[in-house]
């Protein structure tokens, strides 16, 4: 009795929360970054930039020199007034040379988590905390901001580079909620008109019909999925496959896929041979700007 009355209240409450979430104002997340170096001669800005996008946007930051490489993937988990900033680090340091004269590298991966208020600046020492009395140190000032999106949540990157011993790169990391797939079928010398489909990764399969001039159309079931987790620790840590998707192609009502083609959302055409001598050309792209 008690549980049924609770259930009767829980359903509308869940619906209300869902509606509130849908109607909640969208925010734009911004990572403001400045890479600084202090020496005995003073302070020098090595690079400054900004990465912004929807609240799921991550920041991939890399600093490289001849003997050290530090790469990190920053992500923010929003709370009401604060945010949890997580950073997955992957670093490589050259520790010497092998007996054959080749460089030997030491690599390391670890996670750092801190609580920040919106607008706070977190100081990241990528090479470790500065030693007491050391005049030379390098750090990254990272400010996390959240502002109303105003409908614009496309990722954006800006970076201005100074001079210094480190090569600095910033990159927005966004896992696509949807992906545009442009399909073309090649049969002999005939090519079908390109068909554009808006698919959701890990969503249901869609039946598509690709008409070839003068021939019977080819019917296929296509579904978008996320690629498998990378085997390399670096690729996994830095989410290098974040903007990659896989297209699974199957004959209608077939359980096993005929073929799978994977790629990044970068407008590059990829070919997949099908049974019967046909070739499917798939191009992955980001959905249009909103």
């Amino acid at each position, binding site marked *: 009795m008690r549980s049924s009355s609770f259930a009767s209240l829980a359903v509308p409450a869940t619906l209300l929360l869902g509606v509130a979430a849908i109607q909640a104002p969208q925010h734009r997340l911004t990572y403001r970054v400045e890479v600084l170096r202090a020496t005995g001669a003073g302070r020098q800005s090595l690079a400054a930039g900004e990465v912004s996008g929807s609240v799921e946007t991550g920041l991939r930051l890399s600093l490289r020199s001849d003997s050290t490489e530090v790469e990190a993937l920053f992500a923010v988990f929003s709370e009401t007034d604060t945010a949890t900033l997580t950073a997955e*680090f992957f670093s490589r340091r050259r520790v*010497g040379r092998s007996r054959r004269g080749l460089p030997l590298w030491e690599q390391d991966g670890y996670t750092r988590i801190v609580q920040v208020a919106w607008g706070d600046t*977190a100081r990241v020492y990528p090479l470790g905390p500065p030693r007491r009395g050391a005049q030379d140190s390098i750090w990254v000032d990272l400010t996390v901001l959240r502002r109303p999106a105003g409908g614009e949540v496309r990722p954006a990157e800006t970076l201005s580079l100074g001079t210094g011993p480190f090569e600095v790169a910033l990159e927005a990391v966004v896992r696509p909620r949807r992906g545009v797939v442009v399909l073309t079928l090649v049969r002999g010398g005939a090519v079908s008109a390109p068909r554009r489909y808006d698919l959701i990764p890990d969503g249901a399969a869609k039946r598509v019909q690709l008409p070839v001039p003068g021939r019977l159309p080819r019917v296929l079931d296509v579904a978008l999925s996320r690629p498998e987790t990378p085997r390399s620790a670096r690729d996994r840590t830095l989410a290098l496959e974040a903007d990659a998707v896989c297209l699974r192609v199957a004959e209608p009502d077939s359980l096993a896929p005929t073929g799978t083609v994977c790629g990044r959302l970068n407008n590059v055409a990829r070919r997949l041979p099908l049974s019967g001598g046909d070739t499917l050309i798939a191009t992955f792209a980001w959905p249009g700007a909103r």
Partner: protein
Amino acid sequence: MDEHTEWLRQIDAESDGELTLVEQAALARHLAGCTHCSGARASHLELRVALAQSAGAPQARLAPRPVIRARTVARWAVFALLAGVVAGWGLHAGWGGPGGGALEDVRAVIVVR
């Protein structure tokens, strides 16, 4: 073996104090009449004097035997240890290794201001 060779051996034994009185007398009689062996004895004794002087004991009655001193051994041991450390350091720098210092000293840290 000629006659002189045997007398030269006797001269050597005499310098080490290993001859009996009878043998010393026989040797003295031979040396009185043999210029070759008396010259060889003089050379032999001069060589022993030179060895004694180089060993720091010119007044010694017998030629000192070479002695390994504790100080010399310690000096060589320290030298070998230092050479090993320097060579090890060079090899470590050249060929790498597991890395020195604490791991956390080279890992990134985040400080919120």
